[in-house]
């Protein structure tokens, strides 16, 4: 709806817009410039950036195990993402296309399971692993992450697939393709946007997890970034410059994905993909 605004209304709107932008972004801005600020000036209540120095980053990389945490996070998130996509795409396809009894029960249980509190699963899994002598390894953590990435992915894909014109695969079948060929040549191109969305969220959820790594990871060298930042507080007292440098690096992969793939993000976010 187009309407002409009075000058006063324009100024009012501009003020509100600025307020929303500051409210949402100022903490991120403060995080970034605190990480880059020269350490003697860290506690200056100065809102403009600088004086710049990389000393916090040097400490982060030189004196803490942050590089290890970061590589652990990359490893775990990628393994989780690959497993999630490989398992959930065929599963969701079968849930939409097959007439197998109990398929709605599976869909419903998946949505139900996605609402579970992380602790409800992490506590018994940990106690089981400790008693079985199989305490947390990174591969184990990646598999445990499937307990929330899989329900979310199956649920998202199921919702997307319902709306896709799968009838055209029948045309491919009539043309003599096997079902598997029809899937690869006809279906995969249609579903790829949905698969991109699921890939992003599997990665985001695995990358951001704190609860499961807190409970399942006992060895410092196996910590992921979120749990690793807590370790940095514990070990080096609270050094806000170093922590903000680490927090910035922990956010960069997600912010980069968000900036370049925002349209895939928005569909998932609006379905409640982040708890």
């Amino acid at each position, binding site marked *: 709806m187009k309407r002409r605004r009075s000058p006063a209304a324009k100024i009012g709107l501009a003020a509100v817009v600025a307020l929303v932008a500051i409210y949402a972004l100022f903490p*991120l801005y403060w995080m970034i410039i605190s990480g880059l600020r020269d350490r003697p000036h860290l506690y200056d209540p100065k809102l403009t950036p600088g004086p710049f120095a990389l000393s916090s980053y040097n400490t982060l990389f030189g004196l803490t195990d942050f590089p290890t945490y970061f590589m652990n996070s990359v490893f775990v998130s990628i393994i989780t993402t690959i497993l999630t996509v490989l398992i959930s795409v065929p599963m969701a396809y079968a849930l939409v296309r097959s007439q197998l009894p109990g398929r709605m029960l599976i869909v419903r249980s998946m949505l139900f399971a996605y609402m579970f509190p992380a602790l409800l699963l992490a506590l018994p899994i940990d106690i089981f692993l400790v008693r079985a002598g199989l305490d947390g390894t990174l591969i184990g953590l990646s598999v445990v992450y499937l307990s929330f990435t899989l329900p979310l992915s199956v649920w998202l894909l199921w919702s997307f697939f319902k709306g896709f014109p799968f009838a055209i695969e029948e045309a491919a079948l009539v043309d003599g393709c096997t079902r598997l060929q029809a899937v690869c040549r006809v279906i995969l191109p249609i579903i790829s946007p949905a698969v991109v969305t699921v890939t992003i969220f599997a990665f985001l959820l695995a990358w951001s997890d704190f609860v499961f790594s807190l409970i399942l990871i006992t060895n410092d060298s196996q910590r992921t970034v979120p749990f690793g930042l807590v370790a940095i507080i514990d070990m080096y007292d609270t050094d806000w410059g170093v922590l903000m440098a680490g927090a910035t690096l922990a956010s960069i992969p997600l912010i980069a994905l968000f900036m370049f793939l925002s349209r895939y993000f928005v569909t998932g976010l609006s379905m409640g993909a982040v708890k």
Partner: protein
Amino acid sequence: MPPQVVQVAAGARRILPGVTASARRRTRTIGQRERGMFIAFLAPGVLVAIGTIFLPVIYAIHLSFFKAESFISTPIFVGLGNYAQMLSDPLFWIDFANSIAYSIITVALQVVVGVAVAMVLHQEFVGRNLLRGAALAPYILPTVVAAFVWKWLLDASHGLVDAGLLALGLPLVDWFGAYWTAWISIIFVSVWLWAPFVTITFLAGLQTVPDELYEAAELDGAGRWHRFIHITLPVLKPVLMVIVLLRGIFMFSKFDIIWLLTGGGPLQATETLPILAYRKTFATFDVGGGAAVACAMFLFMSGAMSLYFYLFPLDDSQ
């Protein structure tokens, strides 16, 4: 199917019985082969879900009936003993009330803030898409990052917020040090982090409200506020209900943000049920007691989830 088509189809079947019978037979064999493929597609996911979700929940329920002094000591069956102990512990009820209050207050504030921001982002102005992205940014951050950034901003000795208070000549506040300030800080950060979910969902809903409704109301002389109360809110009531239920379920079981900001302190002032379950298990090694708290939460939340499924049944139509 229109009647003529049915007649033609019936006629064809009468004329060519052999053809359709063989076609049907072929469909059946394809169907069987496909059944096998579909089962193969489902099996890995179902197995993973059983191993990482179903069995742990069963194991948590099992553990809640046993008493164990540590992770490795032999558990002793105590029946409902852990539950009886839990229900007679005043701390459980305080934490339960804290969880309820935390979810109600944060969901209400998320709705107010989220809807207000959505209304701003629905206006037309230069750079609207950019601001829409910016307004969502907090929601994609890892909880740990959000918690640490706000801990730094609200730090009692060097934080920017207290520096601002000092500059304005106001008394300094120890944001995480006392009962009410700790709760206010936790609630503020939670709303900052999760209100964008309301914004994005409500914004999508706003685009479905027909413009004619607003135009008609405008002709009747209804002001902005009136239009919002009498058109926008009633039309988007179902959207709001989904938001409130989903966010309520998620907020009730939040562990990480409170744990990271205050650890449930000072002196258990900001402890909720998930923190109680964690503390029982890992601080006092009362595995059964921790499992009992987790199961109680699960039971309570299952009620809320059933309500969600009842109000918003899954649509299987394609």
